[in-house]
């Protein structure tokens, strides 16, 4: 389990990183916290020519709240995200990621770019209808959460693009629930729920190639309070809406049942986490 050979470029700025990726002509790979990429390399499941290490690019670890949106730099570590109070849903979700030694290195953009369907932060990005800022050879662009995740471990990023920042709108109320096999494991099923005004967004992780945004139709319009009955109906609707596959950790039927349970738990929490007016 040793990485295949590659050459190494330690980027000093976003421009430098993008230039290095462009020079690699699609055979370059960004390295941030390394908590997903290094195992992939060690298993020789990828063999990039060039590793572009962005870990030390200055100015990408900021956390700033502007107009109800948390603007986070690409290199914000899971540990920092878990420790901030500006976006409580992101903080709660980040606490569920692995262990301290993983959270100390792993980055927000790394998790989003890696696009693991069972990962917490992609589900949060989607629940909050957030977006990423991307720099590439032809300039910058913004990709909304609904467009970022294309399939399991597949994002809409080009090989030569880099996420520089993340927009995470802060919901008026939120809830997060997860079922994992062991302490710190990737979710079997996780649910992130966020309410913005009267709109509810419920996202289920672990049931499809991408974090699944539940289509709850009219049920997604709520007037502040969500009754116990409404929670049950929404949870059942979420379970109906997902289409998971059988795998090692459970059958499709089981994942559907977990979806219902986790949705209910997340929504119950959501009813208790109304944001104080700033």
């Amino acid at each position, binding site marked *: *389990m040793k990485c295949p050979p590659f050459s190494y470029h330690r980027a000093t700025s976003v421009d430098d990183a993008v230039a290095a990726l462009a020079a690699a002509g699609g055979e370059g790979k960004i390295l941030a916290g390394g908590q997903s990429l290094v195992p992939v390399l060690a298993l020789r499941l990828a063999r990039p020519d060039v590793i572009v290490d962005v870990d030390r690019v200055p100015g990408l670890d900021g956390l700033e709240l502007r107009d109800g949106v948390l603007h986070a730099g690409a290199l914000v570590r899971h540990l920092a995200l878990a420790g901030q109070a500006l976006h409580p849903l992101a903080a709660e979700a980040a606490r569920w990621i692995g262990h301290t030694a993983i959270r100390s290195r792993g980055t927000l953009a790394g998790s989003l770019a890696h696009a693991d369907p069972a990962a917490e932060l992609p589900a949060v990005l989607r629940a909050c209808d957030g977006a990423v800022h991307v720099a590439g050879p032809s300039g910058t662009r913004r990709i909304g959460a609904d467009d970022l995740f294309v399939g399991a471990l597949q994002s809409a990023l080009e090989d030569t693009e880099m996420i520089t920042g993340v927009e995470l709108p802060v919901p008026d109320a939120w809830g997060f629930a997860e079922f994992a096999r062991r302490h710190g*494991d990737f979710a079997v099923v996780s649910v992130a729920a966020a309410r913005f005004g009267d709109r509810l967004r419920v996202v289920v992780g672990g049931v499809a190639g991408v974090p699944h945004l539940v289509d709850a139709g009219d049920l997604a319009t709520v007037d502040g309070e969500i009754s116990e009955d409404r929670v049950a109906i929404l949870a059942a609707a979420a379970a109906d809406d997902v289409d998971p596959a059988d795998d090692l950790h459970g059958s499709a039927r089981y994942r559907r*049942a977990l979806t219902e349970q986790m949705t209910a738990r997340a929504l119950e929490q959501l009813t208790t986490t109304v944001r104080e007016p700033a």
Partner: protein
Amino acid sequence: MTPTDEHAPASGTPVRRKEDARLLTGRGRFVSDLALPRMRHVAFVRSPVAHGRITGVDTAGALEVEGVSAVFTGEHPAIAPVALRAQSGLPGYVETDQPPLARGKVRFAGEAVAAVVADDRYLAEDGAEAVVVDYEPLTPTVCAWAEPEHPVHEEAPDNVLLSRTFRAGDVDAALDGAAVVVDRELTTNRHGGNPIECRAGVARYEAADRKLTFWSGTQVPWIVRTQLAELLDLPEGNIRVIAPDVGGGFGVKAVLYPEDVALCLMAMAMPGTPLKWVEDRVEHLLAATHARDHRYVLRAGFAADGELLAVKADVWCNTGAYSVYPWTAGIEPLMAGGLLTGPYKLTDYECTVRGVATNTSPSGPYRGVARPSTVFAMEALMDSGARALGLDPIALRRRNLILPADIPYKMPSRLVDDSGAYEACLDKAVATFDLDRWRAEQSRRRTEGGRPIGIGVGVYNELTGLGRAASAGPRMAFRTGHDACTVRINPDGAVTVFSGVTSQGQGLETTMAQVVADALGVDYGDVEVRYGDTDESLWGFGAFSSRQAVISGGAAHLAGEHVRGRALALAAALKEAPVEDLDLRGGEVYMAGQEKPIISLAEVARVAYLQSDRLPEGFEPGLEGTKFYDPIRGAFAAGAQIAALEFDPATGEIGILDWVCVEDAGRIVHPVIVDGQIAGSIAQGIGGAMYEHLVYDEDGNLSTGTLLDYLMPTAGEIPELRIGHVSTPGKNPTGVRGVGEGGTLAPNAVVAGALADALGVEVDDLPVTPARVWELVNP
């Protein structure tokens, strides 16, 4: 030890472990750490297909990779003549060959096909990637109870390598006479040892004197030496096997692997160049031995009062692609048939066991060998019987336990049980656990709501310290009943022990020092123990079957006593005192009735080595002695575990609320080490019962190839275990009974029993995962 209890015995006290100082400071000496001049590194090319003919191996590309110095395949002249052939005299056993590197055919995904030698492991892996192997696939067989399309070995067209029926009494008649008959069909999940240090070896061959040194993370260095001598055609004295600190074993390292043999053969082909192979975790999951992939079809008959009348069983054990060397494919099936009835009295028994080859990684010894599965099977019968009879499951067990009055008890498999402490263990476990309190909480939740609670029980016997009459392994070319120990008093009076033990964490360096210190009469701190090196110590079969504390401990005690006798005899002569009045304590010789020592052991030793002019007539210089010990039979160790688990029917989530284990370890040499063995083995048992599962798909690919899918329990999953003891000393010099494996035996039964108790569903297939719980509750 505190200064006040000067010269108190070391045994029975939690002295500081001798191995701790180096292991805590990063100064351990593991094979993985070894660096030698001119050393090169090996990576194996492993088969991606489960079953197929090798139609071509092209190594040219690999030889061009920078840093690669050699590539070996199964056809290489250094490798081709050698095969590992696990031998047994059992009737009907089909012997098969296992090549060090696959030859002609691959039989499981992960089998080593070629090996690349390079300057470092990175380059070796680059080389391994560049080896091109062509395969013509054959249909693989993954399941041991399915018809093969293409047999794994030509010699066994039905894949059955071994089959044997254990028979006692008349089972059919007994079943006819039973008040109730229960049937169960069970499978247990394949899993494995996964020590934190994977397998590791360094082999160095010096052509000038034809000497091979093999540093190996093995549990069985002497067996390795004997087998290597035969396979490599070297005199046994020319081979030195060294097992220094070994990062866990659990049985997985009690095997001589094809990779080990390949490494030595390659080293012999490259004299003067030490070759190092450190297995990585992916290789370990793929190709180190697995275990416990079994099926049990069971029928039991009970009398109306709960007496167990008959057990009839059909057992299939998946032995994987090769008969594990040198233990053979019999290791699991024979243990299953021999120990199935466990701690219960039974006269009418019939059990047919089979070892069936499949295209999966070979099965080998893993802590508890087969008994985690058989205890699950037997306790499932007990629980089903209790339900059918409307009896309390614990009362039903009690009704059938082998009691002290029954000892020695001849089990239906003709093994002789010398324990009888089962009820004592069960009683103490039930009391410690506070069964009444948990039953009350259980019914409170039933009426008032809350997650359902279930109580699970497992009672078991651990067969430990097997002597020649009960020796581990099926009619093999060697009998594993004895070990040796040499005790040497150095010229300065300090003691060096050359023990036949090996240690993978069991603290045997400490335990042997305690035993020798007490047998000899010196302080624990003055005893140094050398072990795991075939050039230093005389003999030890190694670590398996919870044997070393009993057998090597016995040898250490006898050798210590012997040397004590010599030292006292010399002291008596020097001091002109009657030897029967002398006593050796804390390294000083005392005369009965005198408070002050009359001579120190150091002075006695100085005379023995350096002042032959003072030696009495006929006294041979030196103070040293070697003794073998063989307990002839074995020591059965009783144990019982009981636990309360809660289940969430909506998610299948399982919570362990309390877990109590009581074992009979006989006389305890080091209480903390003993509890550590028990806790560690329960944790592995819980892992097997709830988390760990090596899953093959139909094509024979391992689906759980990394630790992201192969889940071992962490501190977050293992509960606060409560461990208690009863003590009936074993009939051996130190009175101990083995404790290495017992803990693993019950968790399958406990967890499955608790689930049935909580939710009324019988679980037939392990592991008990949340998904399984949910599926059973929501069929």
